[in-house]
């Protein structure tokens, strides 16, 4: 079963796609599950200790006790129920995990949660509390700038920072300064020159 986070979930109602899919997968696997699955020793390696990590994400403070190896991306997704940030490659090559730390765009998959300096902003933190989308989110919708949507949270955060950096003055500049965000659906053409 999916472990519940130690602290209250940021999700208001507690029902997420992940919980529903997880429950369905467990119940369908029951007739076939071996009595005791063999797990290799290296995978059973428990952390020798956990690390106290304080994070501020989308304006909210969290105090966590986690394996020091936990990346910011995995912390967001697995410990804080903030699954908007996506794991595309886990090696800093695709940009799907892009978040803002201290207002600067960074790759959360190559950031240790324990090493974060600054406040974190994820895709969940862009919209207003009452639901009004951030102009960049609205622009992506208005310009049909996504297909499957998997790269999109990273694209939007990267775009927000790109504009703030002053690197969105021309289509060519946007293409260059958004080159750290890959889109396998190739929904690129609408991105530049808009929003």
């Amino acid at each position, binding site marked *: 079963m999916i472990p519940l986070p130690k602290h209250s979930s940021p999700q208001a109602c507690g029902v997420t796609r992940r919980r529903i899919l997880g429950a369905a997968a467990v119940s369908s696997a029951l007739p076939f599950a071996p009595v005791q699955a063999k797990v290799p020793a290296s995978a059973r*390696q428990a952390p020798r200790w956990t690390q106290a990590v304080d994070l501020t994400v989308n304006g909210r403070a969290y105090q966590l006790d986690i394996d020091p190896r936990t990346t910011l991306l995995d912390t967001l997704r697995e410990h804080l129920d903030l699954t908007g940030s996506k794991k595309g490659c886990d090696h800093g090559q695709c940009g799907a995990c892009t978040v803002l730390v201290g207002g600067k765009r960074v790759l959360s998959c190559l*950031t240790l949660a324990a090493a974060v300096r600054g406040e974190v902003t994820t895709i969940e933190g862009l919209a207003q509390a009452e639901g009004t989308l951030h102009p960049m989110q609205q622009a992506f919708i208005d310009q049909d700038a996504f297909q499957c949507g998997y790269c999109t949270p990273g694209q939007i955060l990267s775009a927000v920072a790109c504009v703030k950096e002053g690197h969105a003055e021309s289509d060519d500049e946007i293409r260059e300064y958004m080159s*750290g965000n890959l889109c396998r659906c190739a929904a690129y053409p609408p991105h530049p020159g808009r929003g």
Partner: protein
Amino acid sequence: MRAFDYVRATDAAAAVQAGGPDASYLAGGTTLLDLAKLDVMQPQRVIDVNDLTSQFGSIASGAGGLHLGAFVHMAEAAAHPAVLRDYPVVAQSLLLAASPQIRNMATLGGNVLQRTRCSYFRDPSWAACNKRVPGSGCAAFDGVNRKHAVLGTSAQCIATYPGDFAQALIALDATVDIVDASGPRVIPFADLHRLPGSTPERETNLAQGDLITGFTLPALPWAKRSLYLKIRDRQSYEFALASAAVALDLNGGIVRAARIALGGVATKPWRAGEAEAALAGKPVSEETARRAADVAFAGAVTHGENGFKVELGKRTLTRALLQAAAMEV
């Protein structure tokens, strides 16, 4: 990743003290975490040195040259007015590297220590990698080696040093500030990296626990006439197949002095001193530039699929020299 002990260092002395065998410094993390996830790097202790930014994270420009703190992020150095104005090759070598996100995270000190992209080095399921496992052989010799090196290779290793910023540093005679348990020292940047030789697992002359704290570029007024040309499969966010960092001291169209370094083609940052000498006293033309390029690649040794790099490297250097000569400074 294998489990590790995570500690934060408050200053350089604390960092060096916390070190030991199997300890790694963590700054931006863009190399360490990437390779730890691949089980190529296996630190047992990770020393987070990001708090040293306050001490070693500034850029200073003056009569003595340009000082770049090791904890300056790539993005910051690439956009600094003094770097852009006085050492364009440095700014371009940073801006043409990585991605905007990585440039925000990665520090200059970490950048020069980045590891090869050789796919056999990066994948421990390949047993034969002399760099990862000394004496185990080299899978790249007879394997997928299109991007491997043609300069500085040995019978044990042909892995390319992939960094760009290092080429600007080595071309401009930079020095490196290092701190260890006995205090600070300064070495020429050219002495930082090693040829693979028979010990490809030793990539630098740093001792365990050495911490890079800064770089100094000597004052060089004519470094304003410099650039970094990077040729690669994709227009952006891709390592170099071949690159050239060049600076020219032109007087009445004649080269008084030249600085040349080559990226994407060698096993370490590559100063092309003989090519520089071949240009001295000559005007920069297609012919003289090409002749210098021929000199630069005279010692090239190719393997398998990387033969094209010799001609590509020569053309890259030729074009870079012609473009530098045509600059309005």
